[in-house]
C-alpha cells in the first residue's frame, strides 16, 4: 500500500509538481499498478546486467562541435554566449 504521503514524497524526489486532487487519483492508481507489479516478488534473484556486450569504445579523436549559434538557437534569452537558467542560489 502506498499512501498519499508516499506519492507526495516521490513527487518531491522526482521534483515534479502534483496537485492535491491529482495526488488522490495517482495514489489509487499506483496501488492498483504496484499490486500488479507484485507478481515480480516471486522472481528469484535480482538485477541482472541489461547488456549482452562489453567494451564498446570510440577512439580519442576530436570531432567538430556545434556552432555557438546552434547551441543557443533553442534557448531563451542567451547572454554573451551563455545559456540562461533560473537562479540556483
Amino acid at each position, binding site marked *: 500500500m502506498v499512501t498519499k504521503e508516499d506519492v507526495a514524497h516521490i513527487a518531491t*524526489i522526482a*521534483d515534479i509538481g502534483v496537485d492535491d486532487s491529482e495526488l488522490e487519483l495517482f495514489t489509487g492508481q499506483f496501488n492498483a499498478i504496484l499490486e500488479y507489479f507484485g507478481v515480480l516478488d516471486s522472481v528469484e534473484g535480482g538485477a541482472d546486467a541489461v547488456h549482452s556486450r562489453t567494451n564498446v569504445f570510440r577512439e580519442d579523436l576530436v570531432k567538430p562541435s556545434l556552432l555557438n549559434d546552434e547551441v543557443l538557437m533553442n534557448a531563451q534569452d542567451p547572454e554573451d554566449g551563455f545559456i540562461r*537558467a533560473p537562479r540556483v542560489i
Partner: protein
Amino acid sequence: MTVIIGLEIHCQLNTKTKLFCGCSTDYRDDGPNTHVCPVCLGLPGTLPVTNKQAVIYALRVAKALHCEVPAFSEFARKNYFYPDLPKAFQITQYDKPLALGGYIEIEAEGGGEKRIELTRIHMEEDPGRLVHKGSGDRGRYTLVDYNRSGVPLIEIVTEPQLSSPKEARRFLNKLRATLEYLGIYDSEREGSLRVDANISIKGYERVEVKNITSYKGVEKALTFEITRQKGMIRRNAQIVRETRHYQEARGVTTSARSKEMEHDYRYFPEPDLAPLEVSSWVEEIALPELPDARRDRFMQQYGISQNHARTLTGDLKLAEFFEEVTSGMPEIAAPWTADILLGELNYRDMPVTKVPNLHYRALLEEVKKGSVTDTSAVEVLRLILNQVMEGQAPEMPGVIIARLGLSKEEGESFVEVVASVLKENEAAVADHRSGKAGAINFLVGQVMKATRGRADPKEIARIIGDLLKD
C-alpha cells in the same frame, strides 16, 4: 582531539576529447558554449559512447596507485536536477567502479613513510559551469556554459586516514605529482584538480566540505574547518553531520543548509553504455618512472640529499628542468633549484617551464667558478626571472654581471670599505670588543650593503677581525 580526514579528489583527464563525445577538452581559452555538441548538450535522442583513451588513462592511475581492477565494471546514472547537468543525470560509476583499494605513500611526520589507503577510483563526466548573475530575489539568474560538460574525470577516494591538514597537503602533492608523471593530467589547466574533504574529530560527527576548487586551498579549508569543530566541542555545541561549502575568497566554510532538495540519486546501470571488462589491460600498461623511483635515482645518480631529491621530484616539470641543467654540477644545481629557484618561482607564481634553462645553467656555472657571490647570483636570477615575466628577452648572466659590476672581488680590495664601516659604527665595534656575538654579523652586513653583495662574507669577517686586532 584526534583529527580524521578523508579526501575525494576529482581529476580531469587530459584526453583530447570528452568522455562520451568527440568535443575537444581544450576549451579554456575559448568563449562559452563553443565546445559543445548534441551529446554533451544532452539534446534529446543523443547517445554516449565511451572514450577508450579515458579508460586507459584511468587504468594507468589505478596501476600506479596499486589498485585492484575488478573483472567487470560499469557506468551508472546518478539522477539529480541542476542546470549544469544537461541530461539531468551524471554518468558515473556506482557499485561497480573501475578500481578498488590501492595506496599512496607520503612522508610521515617524524620521517619515514606513511601509507594512505584508497577506497576506490571511478570514472565520471564533469558537469557544466555556472555563473551567478543579477541581484534581488527576482533579479538573480544563472548563466550556463557547457564547455566543461562531459570532460572525463576520475574520482579518487581515500580512506579516512589523514590526520592533519599538513598531511592532506603532502598527500595531494604526492598524488598530483604522480598524476602528472603518468601524463594523464595537466596541472596548468585551471580547475583540473578539485577536492572534497570529510573531516571529523574522533568521537564526533563527520562534516563534508565541498567546493575546494583550488588545490592550494585545501590546507586552508581543512585548518579552518578543524578549528571550527574544535571550537564547537570546547563550547559544548553539537557538531551536526552536514555538507559545508568552502568559500575560497573568505577562507571559511559555510553550511550548505538543507534548503536544497532531498536527494535520492536513484542510481541504475546506464543502459546506453556497455560495461567494461578491462582488467586484462592492466598488465599491458607500461608505467613511466614515478616520483619515488625518480627521487631514489636522483639521490643515487647525482649524490644529492633526500630532501633535495624529494623536492626536485615532487613536480614533474621541476624534475625535468633539474635534469636539463644539472649536468656536471649537481652539488650546486640541487640546492639552487630546490631552495632558491623554487622560492623565487613561488613568489612570482611562475611555472618552472618558463625559466630559460640556458640562462639558468650559465648562472650556475658562474656560481661554480666563484665569479659571483651567492648574493649577487640571486640578484642576477631575480633580474632574469623579472625580464621573462615582463615578456622581455632575458640577458645572459655574464652580461648582467658585467653591466652591474657584480663580479666577486678579492677580499683585500675591500679593506678600505671595511675600515670606513668600522669608523662609522663605533658602538658595534665596542660591542664586539666586549664579546657580544651578534656584533660581527652586523658589521659584515654593513660591509655587504656597501659593496652591494660583491664581497664574500667570510672574507669580510676575516678582514674585520684582522683590522680590529691591530
